[in-house]
């Protein structure tokens, strides 16, 4: 167990990270992610509030849809990446990163507190993620067949193992599955029902290796207040011209992101695979030894780790434009040793 921002969380269960990771890719794994933050935005102007806060078109989504989005500052920097759930035109549920819970709620209250009622329910809400090719069937089985037809990024209120949940077909592993939000008192029973159904409990190690292989960014590593969604390859979650904007609306960061798009990017989050027996970690320098001695550092590794479902260690780094073509050779300074790596475009792990 480790102290993860004030929470007692396991790096792994007795099976170990590798077995847990493979269980998710091949069958089903379960993660207790109750440390994450949850809140409601409610009221007749809730949609307007959400439109102002988010880069993706959350406000324009249909009821029952979950939407991945960034919350940006006016300068285009990312406050957090999160998922909003449209429960009704006047009610949105949002799940935010654990480390950013206070920061995000403060930001949301400052920016749109006058437009809607904001309720932080983090302390009362548990979150259990069930992920893998068999996950949906198992959860659906525990829900009496009521969840089989939930589309990807859809959600529904449902009783799972007798426990009232918000069941969303979302996840942070690149696999199919559900994330189940429930009251704290109900969480142990829900967890036990999943274990009894044969789902493998998984810790933080597998959570990180799975998301990295699927090229899902981690706030604090790959994203922070200084990075823009465009630099991070998340332009697809930035709807600059959505109907709200076309009708004269604005959202935080829009002008800065439009300007950045016109100007071009100074750095781009780039994936790589290490060609030797080495692992690159957060903070390692990416170097170009053909440049003058005082200008050889071209970027920094933001995330890195061993591949488990893919061969070779993998990672992400912000690099200048021009280094993004698949197959581009890179050099990474791994604790004083130059290690060769190759640029990978897109997800490291691609499901057949």
């Amino acid at each position, binding site marked *: 167990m480790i102290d993860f921002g004030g929470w007692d969380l396991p790096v792994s269960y007795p099976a170990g990270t590798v077995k847990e990771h493979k269980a998710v890719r091949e069958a089903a794994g379960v993660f207790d992610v109750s440390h994450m933050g949850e809140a409601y935005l409610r009221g007749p102007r809730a949609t307007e509030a959400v439109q102002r806060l988010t880069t993706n078109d959350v406000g324009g989504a249909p009821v029952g849809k979950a939407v*991945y989005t960034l919350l940006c500052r006016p300068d285009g920097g990312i406050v957090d990446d999160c998922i909003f759930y449209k429960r009704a035109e006047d009610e949105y549920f949002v799940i935010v990163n654990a480390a950013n819970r206070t920061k995000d709620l403060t930001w949301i209250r400052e920016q749109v507190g006058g437009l809607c009622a904001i309720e932080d329910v983090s302390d009362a809400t548990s979150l259990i993620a069930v992920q893998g090719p068999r996950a949906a069937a198992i959860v659906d089985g525990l829900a009496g067949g009521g969840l089989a037809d939930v589309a*990807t*990024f859809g959600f529904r209120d449902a009783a799972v193992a007798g426990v009232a949940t918000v069941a969303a077909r979302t996840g942070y592993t690149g696999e*199919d599955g559900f994330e189940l939000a429930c009251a704290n008192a109900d969480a142990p029973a829900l967890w036990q029902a999943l274990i009894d159904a044969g789902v493998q409990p998984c810790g933080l190690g597998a959570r990180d290796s799975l998301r990295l292989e699927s090229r899902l960014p981690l706030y604090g590593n790959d994203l922070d207040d200084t990075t823009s969604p465009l630099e991070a*390859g998340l*332009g*697809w*979650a*930035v*709807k600059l*011209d959505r109907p709200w904007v076309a009708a004269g609306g604005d959202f935080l960061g829009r002008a800065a992101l439009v300007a950045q798009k016109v100007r071009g990017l100074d750095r781009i989050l780039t994936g790589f695979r290490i060609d030797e027996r080495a692992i690159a970690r957060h903070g390692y320098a990416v170097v170009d030894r053909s440049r003058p001695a005082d200008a050889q550092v071209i970027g920094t590794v933001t995330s890195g780790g061993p591949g488990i479902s893919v061969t070779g260690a993998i990672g992400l780094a912000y690099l200048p434009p021009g280094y993004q073509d*698949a197959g581009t050779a890179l050099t990474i300074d791994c604790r004083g040793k130059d290690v060769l790596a190759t640029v990978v*475009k*897109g*997800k490291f792990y*691609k*499901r057949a």
Partner: protein
Amino acid sequence: MSNVPSDLRYTNDHEWLSPGPTCKVGITAFAVEQLGDITLVDLPKVGDAVTKGGRFGTVESVKSVSDLYAPISGTIAAVNAEVSASPESVNADPYAAWMVEITPSDPGEVEALLDAAAYQALLG
């Protein structure tokens, strides 16, 4: 539900082609509905040769990675940089967001593609 423009030709892999001396190629509204938010489009280079049915690129979305298959044989005459830079443009308008333009090596292959009615029937 999906729209199927009548002036285009189609493949079983949910790609569309606009016939002409060079042919623009993209993916259909049905494909986009299946994929969800598209996060990356990986395309070949101008001058690359393609073979009918051969893989010429990939489309990644929040839930999957899918291969793109050449509807006809020929040479890549143009690549849409806008789609590479902004993959979400495919979600916004799949029939405007062409991905590659192919100079066909065998015009007969264009004729052999599904017409709008046949593709609509495929969708059921």
